[in-house]
């Protein structure tokens, strides 16, 4: 058997993060105990920086999309841009994580797993066949299962880890089963080879292929937490350590959706009259379910979990559009969405550390006046989620709607508009609690004194705010990046 030539450069983002992970694990053993936290956090952050630089170089040096390592890995700008988003999200997540009261004997592993998880995500978005797809998916999922449960002193953290493990494994199994069916029908693993096989062997209406396709979509829907495959999301988002929730909501969603788009347009272009409808329906269900369920939440993490379900719906509209504008819209949308998501959970983490209890709409009251920087940031993130102007969320939504309209899905635009109107109620409820509650209603922090100052967390949140607002003004450069990336998909 021949050994394939390995394009190490194409793999460099994943490798950088794997190296960081290994180094952080070594540090957990070798570095003096008091310095483990600083050491592993710095190593992990450097890993994400390295991955970001590598992804940037990869984007720059890949004017043509190619398949590498025995056609298992695609080296293209589409994947590289998604890796950049993952690297940015991971880097900021380190900043949010640093002050988390993780047990000191686990902190090295925490950052090592975070880096490894980022490596898996960077690998996944490059997947070019069903094997690497599954490998990448499991790679980052297993890291996340552990990270969710890492605060073993809290029952809800353990519950989150266990729930995510069971439901996530079920999702992976569905995906694996689907892959097997597709392979069985077409005899091909690599995405474009599947498309060619469907075309040549006339398998457009083949039952095996269709069943496999449906199961693939369902499996990826689990990871993207699109309704009706989202039932793990609120519990896991609520129970997991808040910085991990932040990272999951930004990066996991990004890679799952980017990969969904890649698989569907590369491997199943012949079936696009079917899967566009399926994805559009999933998008509508996610929009409806996510937004309506979020309306009644009092716990902020649960509310944002449902909100993330609805945002999966928005991004699936871009996938369902099945055109180049849609790919552009998806990539653009992910930038302000990831930033706002990370930042919002970062603010929640700050409040959680201050109060030592779950953050609800009640006990976030008055926070806007107490901590002006975090308050204004939360404002910006909520406006971005709601798609209001002066945030990139608006431009993202606009592109998604434009893509849907261009492919004739005007009713998807209307569904998105209605969902946005509903979502305003709960996004504004956060702002209402933070700024407008009566002084008598405010539950002040139980411990006296001023809230803990966390420069790293505040800096990360402010950076998220800068990206959220910046992506409104600097649309053209970002959309140029997205355009070059989208152009390399077979649309």
């Amino acid at each position, binding site marked *: 058997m021949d050994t394939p030539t390995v394009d190490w450069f194409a793999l460099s983002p994943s490798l950088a993060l794997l190296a960081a992970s290994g180094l952080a694990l070594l540090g957990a053993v070798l570095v003096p105990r008091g310095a483990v936290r600083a050491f592993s956090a710095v190593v992990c952050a450097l890993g994400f920086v390295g991955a970001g630089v590598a992804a940037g170089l990869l984007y720059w040096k890949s004017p043509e999309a190619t398949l590498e390592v025995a056609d298992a890995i695609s080296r293209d700008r589409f994947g590289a841009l998604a890796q950049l988003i993952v690297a940015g999200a991971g880097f900021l997540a380190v900043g949010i994580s640093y002050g988390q009261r993780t047990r000191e004997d686990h902190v090295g592993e925490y950052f090592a797993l975070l880096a490894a998880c980022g490596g898996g995500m960077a690998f996944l978005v490059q997947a070019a066949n069903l094997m690497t797809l599954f490998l990448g998916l499991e790679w980052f999922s297993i890291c996340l299962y552990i990270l969710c449960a890492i605060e073993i002193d809290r029952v809800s953290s353990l519950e989150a880890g266990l729930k995510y493990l069971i439901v996530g494994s079920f999702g992976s199994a569905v995906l694996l089963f689907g892959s097997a069916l597709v392979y069985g029908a077409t005899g091909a693993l690599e995405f474009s080879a599947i498309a060619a096989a469907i075309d040549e062997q006339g398998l457009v209406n083949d039952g095996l292929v269709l069943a496999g396709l449906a199961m693939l979509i369902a499996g990826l829907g689990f990871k993207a937490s699109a309704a009706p495959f989202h039932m793990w999301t609120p519990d896991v988002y609520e129970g997991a350590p808040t910085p991990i929730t932040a990272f999951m909501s930004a990066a996991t969603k990004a890679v799952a959706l980017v990969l969904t788009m890649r698989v569907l347009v590369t491997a199943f272009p012949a079936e696009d009259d079917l899967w566009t409808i399926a994805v559009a329906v999933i998008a509508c269900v996610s929009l409806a379910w996510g937004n309506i369920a979020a309306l009644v939440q009092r716990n902020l993490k649960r509310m944002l979990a449902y909100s993330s379900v609805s945002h999966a719906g928005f991004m699936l509209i871009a996938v369902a559009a099945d055109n180049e504008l849609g790919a552009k819209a998806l990539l653009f949308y992910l930038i302000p969405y990831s930033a706002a998501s990370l930042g919002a959970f970062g603010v929640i983490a700050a409040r959680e550390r201050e109060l030592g209890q779950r953050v609800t709409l009640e006990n976030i009251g008055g926070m806007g006046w107490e901590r002006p920087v975090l308050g204004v940031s939360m404002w910006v993130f909520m406006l971005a989620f709601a798609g209001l102007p*002066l945030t990139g969320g*608006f431009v993202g939504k606009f592109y998604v709607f434009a893509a849907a*309209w*261009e492919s004739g899905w005007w009713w998807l635009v209307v569904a998105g508009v209605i969902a946005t109107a509903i979502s*305003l109620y709960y996004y504004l409820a956060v702002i*209402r609690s933070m700024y*407008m509650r009566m002084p008598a209603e405010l539950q002040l922090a139980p411990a006296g004194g001023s809230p803990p100052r966390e420069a790293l967390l505040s800096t990360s949140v402010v950076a998220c705010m800068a990206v959220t607002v910046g992506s409104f003004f600097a649309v*053209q450069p970002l959309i140029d990046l997205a355009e070059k990336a989208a152009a390399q998909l077979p649309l």
Partner: protein
Amino acid sequence: MNEWLTTALIVFPLAAALVVWILPWSNQAAGSLALLAALVEVGIWINALIRFDFDGGLELQQQREWFGDLGVSYHVGLYGWSLWLVGMSVVVLASAIAYAYWTGRDNPRAYFGLMLFLTGAVVGVFSSQDLLVFYVFFEAMLIPLYVLVGVWGGPGRLGATIKFVIYTMAGSLLMLAAIVGYGIEHGTFDIAEGPTSGNHWIFLGFVIAFAVKAPLFPLHGWLPDAYRESSAEVSAVLSGVVSKAAGFGFLAIAIRLFPEPADDLQPLVLGLATAGLIYGSFLAFRAPDVRGVIAYSSLAQMSLITIGLFALDDLGSSGAVLHMVNHGLISAALFLLAGAVERRTATGDFARLGGMARGRPALATVLMATGIIALAVPGSSAFAGEFLILAGIFDDGWGWAVAGAIAIVLAAMYMLRMISGVLHQDVGPAVPEEALDLRPAELAVIVPLVACLLVLSAWPAAITERLSF
């Protein structure tokens, strides 16, 4: 230089807002700085007025690409008529800021920062020549208003803000869908140069958004709460300035880009506007408090303006523009006066007011003068505006004009009822003997608004002959 003037009008208050909000000013300094910025903004507008060429169509325009792949650009510019709307806005906002400065507000840096931000957004709405830029400013107005009402409003402010935001956003999101539809179909989002469209659905998307903002019957549910729960100067801005964004939208977008649907659906819009006109007038006549009268009269007057716009001829549009400026100044002055009365008596209920004219000549004179102009007495600028509107609509059917004329009679009834309820009759139980007349500072805020109205009454042609549609 001229190219940058419109941008300067938009960006200057936004920059001032940041300066006021972020730097650690003392309470006194924040207020005076904001007032200074608002006055400089009026100065910039006067500068623009002097440089303006009223024969040139779209003037002072500037265009920069924003995202090119969809044909969206930052395109701003002013027509003669939108220049007057901008002028009215900056004057009203300056007086609102001055009034707030005089009465004092908690957290003044945030408060005045938001007021200046609102100024920039309003000017942006009136000068945008690209649909997406328009949408951005249209929504950007909502953000400061939401906080201004929600944080500094009265006891029922939370309910009022929720209603206000949900109504407005539902409308403007429909508009977003309409904008996407128009832009993708025509490959451009430009308002000034965009091709006309015959799509009735897209037209309706725009009309509903503007009908909520104006508001028009039956989409006015948010109005009474928002106008009652806001502080006086915010109500002045809401009814005087923000509602005019709807007038701008009707004229610049709905009627200009969709001539055929506008013609087809003219009876629908006119019907709703007429209903709102009569209904609003009756509600104003029945309202138990000062703010209620002004709020519902606002509904009626905006309906009248809409009738003028949807006369779809130059006469009606000229009248509508003149009346938009009139109504902006009138309702701002009235709301500020209502605020002055409420500060003295802690109530706005007619049942507990009355007899305030005795010993308070300044209050009596100013309120009387504003009220008389508001009820469109012949010779006033409001009369000129309403006359042009009715003359414009007469060609489309005399019935509309008759309904309009009836509403003008009703306006006299509710305005006189309000004047007499506050100033005349027996001294109300809530009116303390020692309640002061208008202070010089209050006069300095309100009299310029009335003076503008008197100038326009003497010379309405200043506006009607300088519109350059």
